């Protein structure tokens, strides 16, 4: 299986270590992975702002770059969700369908496509999981707290296998962090309040490290943590799964 690695724009620019960790992790799991260098963005920023019309070029560009891979893996639930659900406004050629149906968030890919192998990671810290909304309720990467059914969570199941990790339950297990893309700017007051409340929930439970599958959420929470000089940090799940003793 040939896997194309999609690195979200903000990870490429601000958090390359997450991209590195994702790549190294996949290589460790014996995946034949390649990073198409002409890739750019999944088109979310324009589309979520109401300008879907301007994101069509990004969509076509994405498909061009990834059509020849069996699967596309990305350390971002929101990007994977956007590709799967919102690439419906360009012509649905075989290539487009193929790309849409085979784009995976990282933990989803490891659990369900790779057969849930051991990743051999070790991370001796108290960790709180931030369940990013697009992944959770968009891609159903876990059961949301609102629905009735058997609980499950791909990110949680990957992290329980990490040695020496202590996973901590939160007061509100899957409330939104308030990033929401341009919402973070357009509704700054509520966005920050939501982020503060999420961070405080983790702090109240004694969490040292907040992790999640979406760096955008973590970036927003980190901005608040740094501004308020709080004794807690954020680490993307790819970095935890790629960590060693």
């Amino acid at each position, binding site marked *: 299986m040939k896997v194309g690695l999609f690195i979200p724009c903000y990870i490429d620019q601000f958090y390359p270590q997450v991209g590195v960790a994702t790549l190294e992790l996949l290589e460790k799991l014996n995946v034949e992975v390649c990073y198409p260098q*002409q890739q750019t963005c999944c088109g979310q920023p324009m589309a979520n702002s109401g*300008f879907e019309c301007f994101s069509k070029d990004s969509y076509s560009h994405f498909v061009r770059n990834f059509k020849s891979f069996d699967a596309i893996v990305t350390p971002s639930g929101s990007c994977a969700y956007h590709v799967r659900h919102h690439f419906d406004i360009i012509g649905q050629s075989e290539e487009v369908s193929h790309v849409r149906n085979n784009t995976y968030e990282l933990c989803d890919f490891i659990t369900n496509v790779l057969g849930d192998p051991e990743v051999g990671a070790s991370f001796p810290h108290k960790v709180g999981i931030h369940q990013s909304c697009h992944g959770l309720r968009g891609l159903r990467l876990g059961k949301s707290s609102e629905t*009735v059914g058997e609980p499950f969570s791909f990110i949680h199941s990957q992290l329980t296998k990490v040695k020496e990790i202590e996973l901590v339950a939160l007061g509100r297990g899957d409330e939104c962090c308030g990033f929401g893309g341009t919402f*973070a700017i357009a509704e700054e*007051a509520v966005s920050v309040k939501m982020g503060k409340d999420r961070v405080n929930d983790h702090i109240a439970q004694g969490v040292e490290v907040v992790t999640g599958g979406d760096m955008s959420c973590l970036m927003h929470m980190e901005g608040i943590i740094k501004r308020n000089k709080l004794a807690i940090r954020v680490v993307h799940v790819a970095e935890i799964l790629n960590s060693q003793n």
Partner: protein
Amino acid sequence: MTHSKAAAEFNKDEKRVDWHDKAVWFMRSNRDKGVAKISQWEDLREAASQIKLDVLSKLDIYLEEFEKNALANGVQVHWAEDAEEHNQIVHSILQRHSVKTLVKSKSMLTEECHMNPYLEQRGIEVIDTDLGERIIQLAGEGPSHITAPAIHKKKEEIDELFQQTMGTTPSNGDPQYLTNAARVHLRDKFLNADAGLTGVNFAIAESGGVVVCTNEGNADMGVHLTPVHIACMGVEKIIPKLEHLGVFLRLLARSASGQSITSYSSHFFKPRPDQEMHVVIVDNGRSRHLGRPDFRNSLKCIRCSACLNTCPVYRRSGGHSYGSVIPGPIGSILSPNVDLKKYSGLPFASTLCGSCSDVCPVKIDIHQQLYKWRQVVMKEHPDRIKQSTMRMASGVLSNARVFDKLGWLARFLLKYLPGWMVYNKWNTWGRQRDFPNLPQSNFRHWYIKNRKKNEQ
């Protein structure tokens, strides 16, 4: 005022925001406890959704069936195109009966039609009898929530209000005392009212009856003591059969607050022998909304308020910041149909987290509709600055070289510009958040340096 500005105002008092958030979250968490007791909960939601989809597909047929059966039961049926006609119809019924005082139970439809001021201007005293509605009526405000209209008010504020309007003695916000005072005050109104008006939770096509659910008993106290009952409903409140109520009455109260059912679920089929009963069926833009394929499913709504209770934005901005009769997620997808320009900001008052869609008992795809309304808003009433920014972004984000160069530039500037240039009042992100630490290079260059050579 836009939601964004109003919400920013609301957030100036952080303690109050925390209090409001906790109060509304309390309803959400009670809902969770209540629904967990029904193992078939997700099947019930699916059944409710299917019933409502069937209703939308045969709305005209069910409405005519309802009217036929209601008429046969001695109920008078009226049709109102819009809010103005609704108000005229209600007024003319009241006028015929020389009504001076009308007691009214909760009806978001009558809020939508601005019925109270219409009647008051014509010399009719309108008494809202739901305690929450009465509180805001006395305070001269509109409801901030669909099922808990006064959820934004603290008990001490209600105490002050009752002292001023009902002459109660100061009680430090004692809920028992205040409720009892309202009971006595409103009992007098019930016993002396000339007519009773209710909303409609569900109208049943096959029997021509209407169902009204309350915990307080105020709808029944109003209607059973007066010679005239007027029930007002939006066209979409129809359900086909009595047995379908089994589904909806199991979903409604649990979704709202986790209760298994409200204290009273009253089914009105025929008027008392000494009473006239009227049903006013209202369109007011609903039939137009039915014609929008992307948005018509919002007409499935049963006004349970679950989406408000779960919405992290609603809880931290309060119902009044939406500026619409119905606030929160459902309000944000219904209001643009009423006035796209006025409510153009509402679809953006959301992070699209999807929690609303997951709690909706009739499975309205609320967060998908919010996304789609954004596209409509930007097409019809584009924000010019946003539009040109996004057009530019589109160019950048579909061209690897340009993206790479601009990304480098952004990181360079953020690193080397003085703090006051980066963190200033135009930098909205930076008001309360720091920017991320800046890496030496981006992933692309790392890959070229460390892996690309392996690909040759």
